[in-house]
């Protein structure tokens, strides 16, 4: 009797019981496993699909013991691989199984260190990139700049650098709808790559100088004697302290301190197209009078304001909560934070302590985060954003490795699923968690992921097929359980949380008997069956989680 653990956060223990030869659905059970509470508690009916007869069914493990979903395909380091899959999904955009094995062999903490030091890994070769895709440099349209970014998300050898860029983009949401200059937004993203693991204060100063941000929040219209508060307000409310931690007077004087932080005269877009903008500090337009900000009085300038901000307890808490929400587990929307406490206050405290200890050193905070128990215990506790779902899927399928056409299609797919990169809906950014999901968006997610991972011609899918084949040939045969387990395993050690989904997978895995590779017909049938299992897994609810 093999015990399996199926669970997202809470595991329910089952054991697999071979069905009686004559069994029809629901299958008869061996006496030892007869447990009527199963059907009462979970109300599971085993799928009847045409005349399919699953050769095994799932029933709860009566002794409640835990075990591996692999049963007879036990792998010694499965736990390590599952944890590595988790780390790579969160600190990057996921990884195919081969990469996970390599990384797991390096050891978890060593991989965290490698991720934390992207500068030690090769960067994207931009010269080559822009020779292959000349349109990407100074891209004329938003989809091209989005494609440029998607290319990097998929092909980067610095996963955390790219993931941090997405984190900062979601936090410091700047949108092309108003900026209308995709290359300038791309430069902002490049700035996030460069400063995203440095000091929070340095990053905020760069943000304040980012021409896209200046234009987005109207700081070019913020003048000595005629202030525009937009940037000053959002800097405090949405980018650092959060509502309730400053007064309207603080906003006003912060805005005064940022007068003169503007964009150098722009080259008109017509007739030659868009040009980069440049930051300019205009001393003659800067308010040199005394200002008072959060109790500090003096002739404060913009960097003084940021210096005061980063020393506020509210800033460390605000950043901790954002990091938790993006990297650890879904949280309520930011607008509810002042009325909803964190899910895991102790985790937030750990991150706040890391912030204080390191004076806002993001690399230091991320090290604490990735090595924490709360992080390691947060597998599948977040709904994937569209970017994570799309990039994660094609990284496993391997169909966008290197230069090839179609990155713009991925970018557009991302927009259709509800996350148009470089164009968040407002400065409040996207709503995350279950708010990524609606019927239309889910349909796209399901069709994209299942259409990709069910395509047995793609290199990453072939690698999964080969893995299954090697297992089958090594063991002489492969049970439906082992087939399903290997497929789940190959998609980032995925787990299916409810027994219904697992039964559906097993039922399809049982069609037509054992997998075999002896004749061309058998090869074709085996590959098709594996494709179908991958299709269904990619279509599942569980696949929606990171």
């Amino acid at each position, binding site marked *: 009797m093999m015990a399996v653990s199926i669970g997202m956060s809470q595991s329910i223990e089952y054991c697999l019981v071979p069905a009686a030869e004559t069994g029809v659905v629901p299958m008869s059970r061996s006496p030892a496993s007869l447990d009527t509470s199963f059907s009462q508690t979970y109300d599971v009916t085993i799928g009847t699909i045409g005349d399919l007869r699953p050769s095994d069914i799932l029933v709860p493990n009566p002794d409640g013991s835990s075990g591996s979903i692999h049963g007879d395909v036990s792998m010694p380091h499965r736990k390590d691989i599952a944890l590595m899959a988790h780390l790579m999904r969160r600190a990057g955009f996921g990884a195919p199984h081969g990469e996970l094995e390599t990384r797991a062999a390096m050891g978890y903490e060593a991989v965290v260190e490698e991720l934390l030091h992207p500068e030690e890994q090769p960067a994207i070769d931009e010269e080559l990139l822009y020779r292959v895709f000349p349109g990407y440099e100074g891209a004329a349209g938003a989809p091209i700049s989005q494609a440029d970014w998607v290319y990097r998300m998929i092909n980067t050898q610095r996963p955390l650098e790219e993931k941090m860029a997405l984190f900062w983009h979601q936090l410091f949401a700047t949108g092309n709808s108003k900026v209308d200059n995709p290359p300038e937004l791309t430069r902002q993203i490049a700035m996030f790559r460069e400063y995203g693991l440095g000091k929070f204060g340095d990053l905020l100063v760069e943000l304040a100088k980012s021409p896209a941000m200046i234009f987005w929040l109207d700081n070019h219209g913020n003048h000595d004697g005629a202030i525009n508060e937009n940037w000053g307000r959002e800097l405090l409310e949405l980018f650092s302290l959060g509502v309730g931690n400053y007064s309207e007077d603080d906003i006003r004087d912060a805005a005064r301190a940022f007068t003169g932080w503007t964009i150098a005269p722009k080259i008109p877009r017509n007739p030659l197209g868009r040009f980069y903008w440049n930051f300019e500090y205009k001393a003659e337009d800067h308010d040199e009078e005394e200002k008072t900000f959060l109790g500090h009085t003096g002739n404060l300038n913009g960097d003084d304001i940021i210096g005061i901000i980063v020393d506020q307890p509210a800033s460390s808490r605000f950043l901790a909560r954002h990091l938790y929400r993006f990297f650890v587990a879904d949280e309520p929307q930011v607008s509810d934070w002042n009325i909803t406490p964190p899910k895991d206050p102790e985790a937030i405290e750990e991150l706040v302590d890391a912030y204080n200890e390191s004076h806002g050193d993001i690399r230091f905070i991320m090290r604490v985060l990735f090595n924490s128990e709360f992080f390691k215990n947060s597998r599948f506790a977040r709904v994937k954003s569209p970017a994570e779902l799309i990039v994660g899927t094609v990284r496993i399928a391997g169909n966008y490795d290197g230069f090839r056409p179609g990155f713009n299609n991925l970018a*557009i797919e991302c927009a259709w699923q509800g996350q148009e990169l470089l164009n968040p809906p407002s400065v409040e950014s996207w709503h995350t968690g279950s*708010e990524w999901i609606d*019927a*239309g968006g889910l349909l796209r997610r399901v069709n994209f992921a299942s259409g990709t991972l*069910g*395509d047995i011609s793609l290199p990453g899918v072939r690698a999964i097929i080969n893995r299954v084949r090697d297992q089958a040939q090594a063991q002489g045969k492969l049970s439906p359980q082992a087939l399903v387990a290997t497929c789940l395993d190959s998609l980032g050690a995925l787990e299916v949380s409810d027994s219904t989904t697992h039964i559906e997978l097993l039922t*399809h895995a049982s069609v037509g008997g054992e997998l075999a590779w002896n004749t061309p017909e058998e090869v074709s049938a085996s590959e098709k069956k594996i494709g179908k299992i991958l299709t269904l897994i990619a279509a599942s609810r569980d696949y929606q989680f990171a």
Partner: protein
Amino acid sequence: MTTTRKDPVLVILQLTGANDYLNTIVPYADPLYWDNRPRVKIPEDLLQPIDDELAFRPDMEPLKKLYDNGKMAIIHGVGFANSPRSHFRAMDIWHTCEPDHVGVDGWLAKVIRDLDPTGENVLKGVNFGQGLPRAMTMRGVPVTSVTNLASYGVLSTARGITSEQERAQLLDSFSRMYAPAIGTGPTMDFLGQAGLSALKGADIIRSAPEKYSSTIEYAKNSIARSLRDVAQVHLAGLGTQVFYTSHGPFDTHFDQSGSHTKLWSEISEAVDDFFADLQEHDSGEEVVLMMFSEFGRRVRDNGTGTDHGAGGAAFLMGDRVNGGMYGTYPSLKPEHLTQGDLAPSYDFRGFYSTVIDKWLGLDPVPIVGGKFEELSFV
């Protein structure tokens, strides 16, 4: 489903990208039009006059027929105060009826909720196009979004499916995988609902093309295809009362005359085909079609195109519409312009309120967020 074929149906056609009002309904008798449009203008001999002041652009001829038959209302100067020149922000305001702060819930989602409070019919609102417009978005209001009616469906991209039976098996599995399960948490429950809504909607809507036959050959362009899809779903009697679709891009900063002509030719042909199709099926009285754009364009042209402006015309078409012109065309006099743009003369929420109240029979106040002047165009 409680809906019958006779329930009022609203079709929204969004002109995405800011349609140039001045070159759509042309104030040809006003010398300021010719002064401000030295390059980007409609030649006078091509205009299709409505009266001695205003004229349709030439490619709107099929729509002019509708107008002449009393089936088209033109509502002038529609917009809102302090119109932002950002497409996104302006579109958001149209979609959420929140001009002063960023809104979340869409006005049509509220309409759909009020038409079907129990959310019984996932096809009460159907969008044709990529991605759901914010106007139809609201937590707890299921709507359906269709990219291509012919290939719409859950797992429609699945590979290696060789028979209908196999597809049916996969869909059966999908429905069981998304069925409510105890103890899996609110997000899983929510995902389950969304998945089953998608599946249910797809199942029903797939029947529409099979039931449909028509002698009307729609024009070969994307908006004509979308409106044919609307007609198919409407004629299938699935209880849909709100359809959404869009066409564009109307963002004609550069080389406007060519692209603007193409867009209006396509829309005019498509709308003409759509109403002809409804007539053929004796359904003309059940449907009104609304057209709007997020804002108009700068009064003065920029040499080859026009930049972002404010205010615009909205249109309502259908057998039950009281044709004619409503409101006043905003003045082009420099002293009446706001930073070079027209000053809107009619709040868009009044336009919505009229349709919500007089066509759909719902209370517009909670939907548009207040009481606004209603007109008599329907």
